[in-house]
């Protein structure tokens, strides 16, 4: 049986099972799930703490992570995010997918894609903090432990995406 789709990616069900097992092991060993946006958040706050520590101390949201002597990088999620980068790189290296390039829809230029990626990222970052988690932390992990808020969140993400999809189809679809 050939489980690969084109481009040699794993069959998504296989990937899902493996991810599910990984998620379970994570919960079992650590008591919590996975996460991504929190790691990026803490790195940003760490940089802020270097540059404008008084501002960090005065803003309650930031002070919680980095106020005073607290080190925002002293949190499991930072290590986990570092691992994601390494793991993604390793997997890419093994399949020869590490290359400086831009994935984009056929109708737009790379420039447009970069701008859109940046814009999408801003919304993602802002929304992830608003929701206290992203698809890894809230949807995946929160969903598996049946957190009501996580399921509501998941619904909202899909709703938002599908609602916008038609309007931005030029970014992704063929002519």
């Amino acid at each position, binding site marked *: *049986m*050939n*489980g690969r789709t084109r481009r040699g990616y794993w*069959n998504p*069900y296989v990937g899902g*099972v493996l991810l599910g097992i990984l998620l379970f092991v994570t919960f079992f060993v650590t*008591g*919590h*799930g996975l*996460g*991504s*946006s*929190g*790691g990026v*958040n*803490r790195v940003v706050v760490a940089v802020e703490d270097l540059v404008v520590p008084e501002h960090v101390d005065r803003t309650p949201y930031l002070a919680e*992570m980095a106020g005073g002597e607290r080190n925002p990088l002293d*949190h*499991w*999620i930072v290590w986990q995010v570092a691992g994601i980068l390494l793991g993604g790189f390793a997997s890419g290296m093994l399949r020869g997918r590490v290359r400086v390039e831009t994935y984009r829809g056929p109708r737009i230029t790379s420039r447009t894609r970069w701008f859109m990626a940046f814009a999408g990222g801003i919304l993602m970052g802002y929304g*992830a903090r608003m929701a*206290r*988690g*992203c698809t*890894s*932390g*809230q949807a995946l992990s929160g969903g598996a432990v049946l957190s009501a808020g996580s399921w509501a969140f998941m619904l909202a993400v899909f709703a938002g995406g599908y609602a916008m999809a038609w309007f931005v189809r030029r970014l992704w679809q063929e002519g």
Partner: protein
Amino acid sequence: MKCPRAAYWGAAMLLLASGALALYGQPDIERKWQYLAGEYGVRLDDRSVYIDPAELLSLMQDDYIRLLIVDVRPEPDWNLFRLRYAERIPIEELPQHRARIAGLPANAVVVVVSNGEALSTRAWKHLMVLAKPNAYILEGGLNHWLDVYHQRKEQPRESDRSQELEGDGEPLRHTFKLALGDRHRTSFPDPHHVNPRQYEPKVKLIKKVVKKGGCG
């Protein structure tokens, strides 16, 4: 999608596994205690969680300890006599306080009291299953407490031993003319007016593990 048969088998397995789970059910408190008994039952067997009344009195005076006295007795006994600052939580209501007890600070100590030991021990097991706090049991219960600290003219009623050993619901052996509740002198004995007792201190503060869960 290639090879759909494997996918169908997978789907069947998931349905089976989740269906079986629905039937088997999540553990209730009694079953959960079975799982935890190995680890926590030892403390009951070697009596390391039963504390002397004098130790409880010293905890009541200690400003640095956040003491939570959980009284699991029925209301009539509670009205007759209880310890100062005690909180009455019947065993069935313990689950409702789960979050609060699990969120107690690192300097918190919980002491479970009843008239004797049977009811308080059962409540202690439930507490450990629910929230795993730093919890102890008053040795001999309030009957013993009153034996030690109650200055009275008459001797207390002779205890009906068989009644005490018979599961929950041991009676309060001491009689009171008025239901003073916690306004009794013995509810918080003045340490200057009691004979110092020798006891083996068993209460230890445990380091609280802060769960840093969530996406940052």
